[in-house]
């Protein structure tokens, strides 16, 4: 895209007055998002428990702890796992939405958006009630004498995955569905005409065309999953601890805002790195904004 340079903001006939509408949100974002981010970043190199000449003292502290590194690695592992699970569930779901009649597709859309209508915390507590040793599943199976000991469902990675994929699934389904809708059905028919069996037509024609949606959905889910906090705390075991829990503990319990800011900056940096790497394969504009062809 050619760079637009030298355009005059005032006067000139090319000035679009509607652009003024963007001013309040930009001011808002700068005041309540950008400025705090800068403050947090500065704090990570200025706020130490003891005076020290080393601006990177908090970073040394962070990387000196094996638990921090373990939990950071775990954060990315849990996010990757959630992405894979959401993809495995979301792709077939989006495919189904794409092939059924519009009315049914609308119902399926509502079904996937339904969880949004209650709070994350409520849903996570609901999973607790379902999954725990004295929860619905275990009580039923114990009473029915199917099992003698409760199944370990809660305080496992499985529990975290159930809780997180339920929250994140729409972010996978919707981008994939949007891309699928744009794929001309004639392509698959043409492939069939040329002798491709249904699966080959899917694999060689439909699937590649839907990949932009897959990448967009996966990126969105992965990045969102990196910041999860409540779900792993309530449904996971200590081994499922994620970095946001450490940040909360540093900020709220120990008032160590220096290390809390440092962890936040590290998480933000790694998230940006993921986005940057992803931007080489997928247009971020498609992920976070318009999916219209340009």
């Amino acid at each position, binding site marked *: 895209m050619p760079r637009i340079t030298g355009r005059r903001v005032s006067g000139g006939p090319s000035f679009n007055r509607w652009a003024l509408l963007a001013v309040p949100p930009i001011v808002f974002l700068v005041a309540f998002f950008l400025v705090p981010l800068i403050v947090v970043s500065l704090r990570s190199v200025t706020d130490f428990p003891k005076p020290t000449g080393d601006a990177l003292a908090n970073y040394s502290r962070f990387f000196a702890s094996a638990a921090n590194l373990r939990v950071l690695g*775990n954060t990315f592992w849990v996010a990757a796992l959630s992405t894979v699970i959401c993809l495995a569930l979301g792709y077939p779901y989006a495919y189904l939405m794409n092939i059924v009649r519009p009315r049914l597709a609308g119902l399926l859309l509502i079904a996937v958006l339904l969880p949004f209508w209650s709070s994350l915390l409520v849903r996570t507590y609901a999973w607790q009630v379902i999954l725990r040793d004295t929860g619905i599943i275990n009580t039923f199976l114990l009473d029915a004498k199917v099992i003698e000991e409760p199944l370990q469902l809660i305080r496992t990675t499985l529990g975290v995955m159930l809780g997180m994929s339920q929250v994140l699934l729409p*972010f996978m389904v*919707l981008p994939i569905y949007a891309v699928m809708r744009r794929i001309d059905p004639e392509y698959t028919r043409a492939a069939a005409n040329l002798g491709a069996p249904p699966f080959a037509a899917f694999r060689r024609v439909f699937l590649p065309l839907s990949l932009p949606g897959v990448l967009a959905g996966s990126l969105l889910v992965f990045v969102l999953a990196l910041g999860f906090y409540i779900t792993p705390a309530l449904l996971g075991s200590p081994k499922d601890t994620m970095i946001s829990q450490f940040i909360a503990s540093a900020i709220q*319990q120990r*008032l160590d805002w220096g290390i809390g800011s440092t962890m936040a900056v590290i998480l933000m940096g790694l998230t940006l790195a993921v986005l940057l790497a992803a931007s080489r394969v997928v247009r971020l504009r498609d992920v976070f904004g318009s999916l219209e062809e340009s």
Partner: protein
Amino acid sequence: MTIWRHSFLLVAASALLVGACSGGAGASPGGAAATGGTSASAAPTGAAPESVAPASADPAASSAADICTNPPKAPEGAALTFSSYGGAYQEAQRKGWLEPYAALTGVKFQESEDSSNATIKAQVESGQVTWDIVDVGNDFGLDANADLLEPLDYTKIKKDEILDGFAGTYRVADITYGVVLAYNTDKTGGQVPQGWADYFDTAKFPGKRGMYDYSAGGIFEVALMADGVAPKDLYPLDIPRAVKKLDTIKEDLVFWGSGAESQDLIGKGEVAMSLIWNGRAYSAKNIDKKPVEIQWKGQIVTSDYFVVPKGTPNKDLAMDFIAWATCKENNGAPSKYIPYGPTNKNAPADPANAAQLSVSNVDESTAYFDDVWVVENAQLLEDAYQEWKTK
């Protein structure tokens, strides 16, 4: 396609929202019903001799005597913001202290139900102090937080009547409670666990164990007591020894982050035993009607504290209230509504609830947190805790 473009903008926006919420939501366990105590071995019952004020302090002494029964009238329109941890706890403080004090002095109370050390810090750092009196846990209010707090006015507050070690430069204890062992009698088969050693004995008492998910919440202390360390010899904590003991039940531990969670876990029998704040065990039994009992042996007696954030415009009014609420005449009032006891040595607790109070169950097995040591070693404790827990 336009409609789709719009819905995607919407989805992206809600995605950001969910992201923000997942980061921000959550109990701040630093307090939810508080945390605990002091190194000095307090003598929580037993009357102390009446203080004899030196002659030079006479005016202060007489004002301190008056303030208990006849606190100074507040100026017209005066308001104080009181922040505590909400729920039944704050309701007890409201009925026991705020309402009577408002009636006596004419001051209007505004309340916040989400006390948090982090909020105090944010208010003071930004110069926007809106909380005047804050009920905080035992991990806050020591010299480490000097730049966030006003020194208390001990010409008004009767320091010598407060339990030894529970009144510091920046904080004075308002209620006492116990970090105790509670057990679900459905899960213990008629046996009574005798202390922390039984908490760690999953052969004798099968079932999971509830634990406060906080490095300074008692986890190391109870592990050491279970391992045979006498309560008075707990500090400095032998962390490697505690970790070794904790390893023996690591797979059986269920961590809770808020008082409500702990009450639910022990009440439902999801855990057979739990480290828990005594008020939460009380509520599980008496409010939720669950088969829950408390073993007082090995309890850690601790306290919530009043602090005054630095820079509040209502400092003097706040000091008056704190002095009044810690007087022997008034300090025990909330114990009518919740089993949290007085911190004034001479304050009577509500007779109906006296047996349920931490301070009524003190014996040689009772421990006290050494808050000074714990705060000074907070980083060490946290690192050891997370290293052990996440491994």
